[in-house]
């Protein structure tokens, strides 16, 4: 049987999914092995299948011959969890490392987005492999789901208190960060729907969305994105449409060492506006945002109207801050 395992090409793909090991029954390690893994029957050879978590799946005297051998291997692979290829394990490791890095930088949005890329290998959180790195990926994903649930629950708790805006912002933020997670999507959508139905909370949603977008951009490492976030925060301060949003924007600007009044002035003046593709640009001053359109005044005094959703995400954030 040992020789067939090494040479029979028809079962090579099955054999490759195992870690092969030969233990000598007259060697120094046999006693310890035999104590840990009891077997049935008498005589040698003794065949074992030990799952990666150390669980014995099979341990009996006698070898497997003929068609019995591939069937034996298939049966035990079925009980051994998901077997990933080396390349897939390397992918999982890369994802786990990236998620840890994003979490260390307090960038939950990127962490969740990256963690969810494992859906191409299986169900994130339930990869079902006994490989150390795959178990770590499952634990990491489950932790993110729990964090998302806690964030949403915390936001909903705030909605029942005095600081309603903090609650609305929490729901909006949880939706942006954790909305991609199937386990949370239903709860997030439901929470957002509840906001829309509530006459007291509905008016706060737009301000919360603008602030959430601005905070997310300002929290980015890339200087150009962070600058866009700072500009959007300054616009919120300048507009001062919602006192709570203004205070949060001011606090964030102070944390980033940005000069809010100066930046707000800059937003008021001419700036370069780009469309979503970055292909079309216009130097103009923002006049107003109404009915989903942005009115921009060019240097020659002409005013052009552009659909808000045609602008780049950053410019939409700036424009929304002026609403």
């Amino acid at each position, binding site marked *: 049987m040992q020789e067939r395992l090494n040479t029979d090409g028809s079962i090579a793909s099955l054999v490759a999914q195992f870690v092969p090991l030969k*233990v000598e029954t007259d060697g120094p390690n046999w006693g310890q092995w035999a104590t840990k893994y009891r*077997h049935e029957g008498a005589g040698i050879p003794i065949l*074992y299948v*030990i799952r990666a978590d150390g669980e014995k799946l099979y341990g009996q005297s006698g070898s497997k011959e003929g068609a019995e051998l591939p069937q034996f291997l298939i049966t035990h692979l079925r009980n051994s969890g998901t077997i990933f290829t080396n390349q897939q394990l390397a992918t999982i*490791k890369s994802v786990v490392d990236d998620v840890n890095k994003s979490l260390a930088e307090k960038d939950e949005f990127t962490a969740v987005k990256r963690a969810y890329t494992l859906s191409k290998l299986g169900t994130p959180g339930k990869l079902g492999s006994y*490989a150390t790195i795959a178990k770590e990926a499952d634990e990491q994903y489950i932790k993110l789901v729990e964090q998302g649930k806690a964030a949403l629950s915390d936001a909903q708790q705030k909605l029942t208190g005095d600081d309603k805006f903090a609650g609305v912002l929490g729901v909006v933020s949880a939706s942006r960060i954790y909305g991609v997670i199937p386990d949370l999507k239903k709860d997030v959508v439901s929470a957002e729907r509840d906001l829309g139905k509530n006459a007291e909370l509905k008016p706060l949603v737009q301000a919360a969305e603008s602030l959430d977008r601005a905070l997310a951009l300002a929290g980015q490492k890339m200087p150009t994105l962070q600058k866009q976030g700072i500009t959007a925060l300054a616009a919120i301060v300048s507009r001062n449409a919602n006192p709570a949003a203004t205070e949060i924007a001011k606090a964030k600007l102070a944390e980033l060492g940005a000069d809010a009044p100066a930046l707000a002035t800059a937003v008021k003046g001419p700036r370069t506006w780009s469309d979503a593709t970055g292909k079309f640009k216009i130097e103009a001053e923002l006049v107003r945002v109404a009915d989903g359109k942005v009115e921009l005044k060019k240097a020659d005094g002409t005013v052009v109207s552009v659909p808000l959703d045609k602008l780049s995400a950053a410019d939409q954030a700036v424009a929304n801050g002026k609403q």
Partner: protein
Amino acid sequence: MRLRSPFVVPLAAAIAAYASAVATAEVLTIEQAQALSKETGRPMLVMAGSKT
């Protein structure tokens, strides 16, 4: 092939070791096979028999 520690094997090392481990199964020690199994998630297929 030498693995640094029986239970703490970096994934890259484990993956690199796997191909040669398959080809030279008999040179793996119990500790090495267990560590490799744990890192890769693959079950161990163990044949116990006399050296002679």
